């Protein structure tokens, strides 16, 4: 009797955890406790089924709520564009070429001759830095869980693209609309995005032709290549 009274608070604790057990968001330790209790307590197992029923209908209900209209994204990115115009926030980039050009303007011919040597050194240095950045980014590349590599059976044709840094969100959105393309994954290392360029499978020649067409949009596309 005493033992059963002692078990009552423990059972209440376990019962309170059932919703999170159904959702799979308990720690391993708590999940094990719940599993053990469920195996030994038929009434608790019956109540767990009620929880699962509630969860299924909650998901069903939420999934039927629809999605916001495209106007929300248009309004949001218009607001972001407007903020960008007002603020001085910029990507953390250093324009070595621009810096050198500005410097050269103020030099005498003799100084310029010497600066030729300095420029050569600078170019080598920049090459070294770029290689370092490239290798560093490769080392820190990541893969999204929700946008994993498609399976071989996934229909459609795809390309890897790096957008022109001067392209606005409006330009990119227009690019997607015009070419009926959509963003699949990214950014990967080096600012590369994977995009779907056709909803149906294309032959290698067809895809190459389509990619060549897309590459002509140089205001938006800095680099593009077919990908499986």
């Amino acid at each position: 009797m005493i033992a059963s009274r002692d078990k009552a608070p423990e059972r209440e604790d376990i019962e309170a955890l059932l919703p999170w057990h159904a959702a799979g968001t308990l720690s391993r330790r708590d999940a094990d406790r719940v599993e053990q209790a469920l195996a030994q307590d038929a009434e608790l197992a019956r109540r767990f089924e009620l929880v699962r029923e509630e969860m299924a209908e909650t998901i069903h209900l939420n999934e039927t709520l629809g999605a916001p209209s495209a106007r929300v994204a248009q309004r949001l990115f218009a607001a972001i564009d407007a903020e960008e115009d007002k603020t001085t926030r910029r990507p953390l980039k250093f324009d070595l070429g621009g810096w050198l050009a500005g410097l050269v303007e103020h030099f005498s011919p003799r100084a310029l001759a010497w600066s030729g040597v300095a420029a050569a050194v600078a170019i080598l240095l920049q090459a070294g830095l770029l290689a370092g950045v490239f290798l560093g980014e490769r080392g820190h590349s990541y893969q999204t869980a929700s946008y994993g590599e498609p399976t071989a059976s996934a229909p459609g044709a795809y390309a890897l693209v790096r957008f022109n840094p001067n392209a606005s969100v409006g330009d990119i959105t227009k690019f997607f609309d015009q070419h009926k393309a959509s963003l699949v994954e990214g950014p990967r290392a080096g600012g590369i995005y994977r995009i779907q360029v056709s909803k149906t499978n294309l032959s290698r020649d067809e895809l190459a032709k389509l990619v060549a067409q897309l590459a002509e949009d140089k205001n938006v596309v800095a680099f593009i290549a077919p990908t499986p």
Partner: protein
Amino acid sequence: MTYVTDNEPDWLLARPIHEPTVGGMQATSDEALISRIATGDRLAMQVLYARHHVRVYRFVLRLVGGNAAVAEDLISDVFLDVWRQAGKFEARSAASTWLLAIARFKALSAMRRKPEEELDEETAGAIEDPADDPEVTAQKKDKGEILRKCLTALSPEHREIIDLVYYHEKSVEEVAGIVGIPEATVKTRMFYARKKLSELLKAAGVDRGWP
């Protein structure tokens, strides 16, 4: 129920919530996107928006009683805040938890501007009166449909916690962080939300034998 928050609190931006083991890969990717957003990468913002806007919209839509126009305005505000505050995100919580916390704050602020009685009337109007003829209702509709009707009839406070746990898959700790209540209260509130749901079901002719 009272939602009183005069100023946007700091905890909204950097709350010490720890990501559970589930979804770790997703959190890492979101974290990288938010770092890029902090440097002004608008494309990273597009990706983050594409990934999360539907769930955030549905969460907000349920909080504001189904008013789609209000919900759309609010999610636009939520993501604009993300754009502005990305540099303050400390990645101690999952990005989705951070988004839902901002969304909740925005939704409750909007609700404060609207009389609660009006919301309750809307909620009540959204379902049929189960007391009219429970047996007939139970016969006509399947149990799932009745359950969904009763979920809609819960108070905003109870709807919120059920959605966070069942649909948004938030742990006890994360719910506590989003709602701003102790973890023990999260469990108690969830229990009472489920109890109320059972009462509504019983009134609609579905006796589950619990509680």
